[in-house]
């Protein structure tokens, strides 16, 4: 066994041993608050077992291992449906950015430790009502206030803000220059006076995203994580941190095996649906798509193991997998006919076709819409021109609203 294989085997065994305490059965029927509490205990268990901060430096309480070990563990972990979703953003982007750009190292060290142990959660305050894909168009402003700053404005779609202790935020500090040049990056205390968090109920019924309002929120200058006017570069760095996470060719929906099982059980025109050409074609196409993504991901892992940089094709995963999941989920409802009406919004999109279907649009929008991803592929990988941008080079305060 190679070192990595034995690492995987140990990780798999540990995950298996956690199932009775944190698996799907243990989570069944819990309220979100109860599930979060269970999640904090799970995160602590991960930390104690050496599976938190796997590729983070040891002087910041990490394990000092490589990216490959991290995604190897995550590949095992994702098989079990553990309550880790509350920490995904926190440990995925804001905390690594704090590690990289945070000035006060003692403060950084303390926050990283608490985040790794599940005691504290960080959110990422980027999108706004009028700035989603066009992040640099954001309007929340920070003005100087004595030696510090005063923040006013609104963020939106902030995942887990209602449970967060801290957040990283991009704000406008100079409206008189071109839009991406007037931004600055800070961290904020989510419990500070003037911060109001209001959950948004999504179409599928859950409320993990929020509106966050800033009303004269005062912060000192040591919260600043970029040069004044240099916030856009740090924001981009945040988004680039984890280009290769453990990906899921099911698009975070059900495994194809579940569809095959359904097609074997259900009858169409008096015979099993698995014998129907329309169904067979969709199964075959979906499998071919997933197999391609799996092979791309496997190749990326092997390249990382060999010390090489994986190719840009890894960026296809979300684009291809989530929209395929959406179609397959529709088809699964078709297969069930009127039996497909039954719906329990507490079921997981990974286990239930209706839940997968109703939550699929979120997947095609969050973290880069299909259209944005296609633009990125066209421009960054294929060298095609940017879209026409009438606001290019125009001072922010002169762009027509």
């Amino acid at each position, binding site marked *: 066994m190679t070192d990595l294989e034995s690492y995987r085997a140990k990780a798999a065994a540990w995950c298996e041993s956690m199932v009775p305490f944190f698996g799907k059965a243990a989570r069944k029927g819990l309220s979100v608050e109860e599930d979060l509490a269970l999640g904090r205990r799970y995160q602590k268990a991960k930390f104690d077992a050496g599976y938190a901060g796997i590729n983070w430096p040891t002087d910041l309480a990490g394990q000092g291992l490589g990216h490959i070990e991290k995604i190897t563990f995550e590949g095992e972990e994702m098989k079990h449906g553990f309550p880790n979703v509350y920490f995904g953003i926190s440990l995925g982007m804001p905390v690594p950015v704090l590690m990289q750009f945070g000035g006060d190292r003692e403060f950084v060290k303390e926050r990283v430790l608490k985040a790794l142990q599940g005691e504290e959660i960080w959110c990422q305050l980027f999108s706004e009502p009028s700035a989603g894909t066009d992040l640099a168009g954001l309007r929340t402003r920070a003005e100087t206030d004595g030696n510090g700053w005063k923040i006013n404005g609104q963020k939106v779609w902030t995942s887990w803000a209602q449970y967060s202790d801290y957040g990283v935020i991009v704000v406008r500090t100079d409206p008189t220059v071109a839009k991406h040049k007037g931004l600055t990056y800070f961290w904020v205390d989510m419990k500070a006076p003037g911060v109001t968090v209001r959950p948004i109920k999504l179409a599928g019924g859950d409320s993990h995203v929020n509106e966050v309002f800033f009303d004269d929120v005062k912060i000192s200058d040591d919260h600043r994580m970029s040069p004044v006017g240099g916030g856009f570069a740090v924001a981009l760095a945040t988004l680039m941190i984890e280009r290769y996470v453990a990906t899921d060719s099911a698009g975070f929906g059900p495994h194809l095996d579940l569809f095959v099982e359904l097609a074997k059980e259900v009858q169409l025109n008096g015979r099993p649906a698995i014998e129907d050409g329309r169904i067979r074609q969709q199964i075959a*196409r979906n499998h071919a798509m997933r*197999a391609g993504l799996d*092979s*791309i991901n496997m190749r990326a892992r092997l390249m990382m193991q060999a010390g090489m940089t994986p190719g840009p094709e890894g960026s296809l995963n979300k684009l291809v997998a989530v929209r395929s999941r959406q179609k397959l989920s529709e088809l699964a409802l078709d297969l069930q006919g009127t039996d497909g009406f039954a719906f329990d919004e507490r079921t997981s999109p990974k286990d239930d076709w209706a839940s997968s279907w109703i939550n699929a649009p979120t997947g095609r929008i969050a973290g880069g819409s299909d259209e944005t991803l296609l*633009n990125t592929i066209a421009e960054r990988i294929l060298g095609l021109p940017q879209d026409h941008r009438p606001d290019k080079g125009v001072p922010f305060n002169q762009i027509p609203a």
Partner: protein
Amino acid sequence: MSILYDEGQLAIATESRRALEARVSKDDLLPLLQTSGQYHDGFWMTAKEQGWTALALPETYGGLDLGIVELGLIAHQAGRTLSGAPFLTSSFGAAKAIELYGSDEQKARWLPGLASGETIGAIAFASGPDALPAAPAATWKAGQVEGTAPSVSGGLFADVAILFAQDGGARALVIVDLDGIERKAIDSFDNSRCIADLLFAGASAEPLVTGEAARAAALHILALQAVVTAHEQTGGAEALMEIARDYALTRKAFGQPIGAFQSIKHRIAELYGLVELARANAIHAAAREGEDDFVTAAAAARLSATEAYDTAARDCIQIHGGIGVTWEIGLHLHMRRSRTLALEQGSSFFWEDMLVDRLAGETT
């Protein structure tokens, strides 16, 4: 396990690309469309000189002892430049059938010629939409074959065919020496494939596999060929994606390159996705030869490669507008080839069924 190419394999890719780009051009290929029964001699000479015919065959019989990973790399390049004859895949299939299922005498008789390229092989399994028919049109009995093998790619010039024939109530895989066999050339939309009906009329044939095992053996040969073809299709799709990209960067309309319009750039980005999925599946399938899931992997490779090449042919021409449909520009060469390769080695319907049978655990 998906693989990473090593340096030797990457050198094969580079060298074959160089050789093909120097020897094969659309100006050579266009006239072949309007002739009957001619292939591109420069392509086939190159294949022989470069040792591609020997690549995946055993050293004992003049081969180079490499496999479908390496042959796939050549096929990918042949797909990019458009191969001028179908023999690289057809001879490979025939040679593998003889290598895997033939006697020592049969191997000694056929493999050296197939390895050098002096002998051309063909695979005669299909009958219309049926890649492995339950009742093949040709019948093998007492060492002789009767009937016809319809529309065999390379059939016009092949010296030896591997035939899937009826054998009483069962099927058999047999070798037919095609010397003196009557062939009826089929004019097709892609004439350099040298497609012909083979009219056997009592030709002598030797058995390779008979009884229950014949179908599985034929399927294995088909899957090997399918993986090679999937690489060729991926190469064609990749070339078309690049041609479309380059055209979108240079052609201007309304004061900007047409590639700045999302209707164009997204179309090309979608092609990129199809090409990368096809490539990943092809590489994966080549690495699964000899494993239990080889047919599953080959089927996935074949389906995504066919989708990629068909879509790329459609969209690349569309992006070019009027110039795209002219004879001169030659994009129709790829359009023709994309459909030819979709039909050879079993259509998408066939591979969808192979795949779902396996996913549903109902393999026969």
